[in-house]
């Protein structure tokens, strides 16, 4: 049974990355996940945690009378106004993964590492993926979760409204960031419009599959089939 070692899960904000991970965590057993989706027991590395941490640090700098470093406060969260910060975050992935996971061969015996991020702008994924180290890329496959910009905005708002019901701390990607940063990306250019194949990144052939995630499916056999079809295809390329 093929198992992904590193599975890079990317796509616009609210495209369904978290729902995909939720499904894999909660809706299937370890055995099912491995058999149907080629994903072992898994851990996650998501740059949102680092991003949020830096935004909170900005609050501290501001309180201490210094200028914020990477973010501005927005009504519903933070707005990243230092574009270099996106590169900073990507550069954190490889050293982190190498130090925490690649040094432990036993981790990969039955586990998968999910690497999650979203990027925007004309050179979004070309810039981001090419910043990963060869060591990480050698063990990676890419699942791109594709939704339109409009759908991404709709789900971003809907998710926020849903969270507001249960927490005043609900947040969303601010509209100015959706429009200013996430509106366009280069995934189709990077993949030459192919739905699957291999990307040559830093001399490593990295398998990829693009999974159309519209219309939104919240559960049920159709969702499972959507995931399984994409991941079966990806596994064949590994």
């Amino acid at each position, binding site marked *: 049974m093929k198992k992904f070692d590193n599975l890079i899960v990317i796509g616009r904000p609210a495209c369904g990355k978290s729902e995909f991970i939720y499904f894999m965590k909660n809706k299937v057993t370890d055995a099912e996940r491995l058999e149907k989706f080629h994903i072992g027991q898994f851990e996650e590395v998501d740059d949102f945690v680092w991003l949020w941490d830096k935004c909170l*640090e900005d609050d*501290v*700098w501001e309180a*201490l009378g210094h200028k914020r470093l990477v973010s501005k406060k927005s009504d519903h969260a933070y707005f990243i106004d230092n574009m*270099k910060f996106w*590169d*900073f975050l990507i*550069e*954190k992935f490889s050293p982190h993964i190498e130090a925490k996971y690649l040094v432990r061969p036993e981790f990969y015996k039955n586990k998968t590492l999910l690497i999650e991020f979203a990027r925007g702008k004309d050179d979004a994924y070309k810039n981001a993926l090419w910043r990963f180290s060869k060591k990480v890329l050698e063990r990676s496959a890419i699942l791109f979760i594709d939704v339109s910009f409009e759908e991404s905005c709709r789900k971003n708002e809907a998710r926020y409204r849903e969270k507001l019901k249960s927490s005043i701390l609900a947040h969303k990607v601010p509209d100015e960031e959706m429009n200013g940063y996430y509106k366009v990306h280069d995934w189709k250019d990077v993949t030459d419009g192919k739905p699957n194949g291999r990307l040559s990144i830093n001399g490593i052939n990295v398998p990829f599959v693009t999974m159309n995630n519209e219309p939104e499916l919240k559960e049920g056999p159709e969702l499972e089939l959507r995931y399984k079809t994409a991941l079966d295809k990806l596994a064949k390329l590994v």
Partner: protein
Amino acid sequence: MKNIFQHLFILGRPASGKSEFIDFMKKAADAERAGKFHIGKFAEVDDFLWIWEKFMEDDIWEKIGEKRLYSKEYMPGNPGMTPDAERLLMFCMHKFNEAITKSYLPNPEFYKDHTLFIEFARGRKDAYKNALTALKPEVLKKSAILFVLTTRDESWRRNVARYQEKQKHSILAHMVPKETFGHFYGEHDWLDITHNEQNGYITFHNVKIPFVTMNNEPESVDPKVLEPRYGNALNKLWELYDK
């Protein structure tokens, strides 16, 4: 467990002996540590980790073509804080407040048998005055301060010696570079704010905090020397703390 410090500040110049003190306490049995030194099982909060993390982040900023924010690689593989990065020290005081109020103070169980070590080094004019003033009263209320005193020259000597010793075993050895040491750690205000008293109380935010200044020279690794040195200081501190 009674008769143990709840928060014990361990202050002093880099390489003054703070880590060696903690190492000594780590090796002592729980009962012995509590009985002789008034220290329970313990956890540590040390701002070195936050500062080092910022130095590592500087490597990333530099890699992506940006300016380093806080540090310079004064020696290969061995960054040190730059003079214009003093703001980082106050940032760390905020982190102390955050870490302690979130992870320890809400947990009374912790204090039943634990002591929290709070460790940092500061230098320059108003060093400890500014640092301690930045802490929240609720953090200070449970506290006693052990100041590990060494001269500037002794601190520098040990800083270099420790580095050379570590270099024998690891390429990851580091020290405070002389540029950073000279700028940040040459002088401090501890003896001023304590009026050259060896022990007593200092007050911040209307909280009276007991302190002891422990002379940590000459250097020793001999438990027969360290035990009475630490014991005398901490027993005096306990006397003040328990009043």
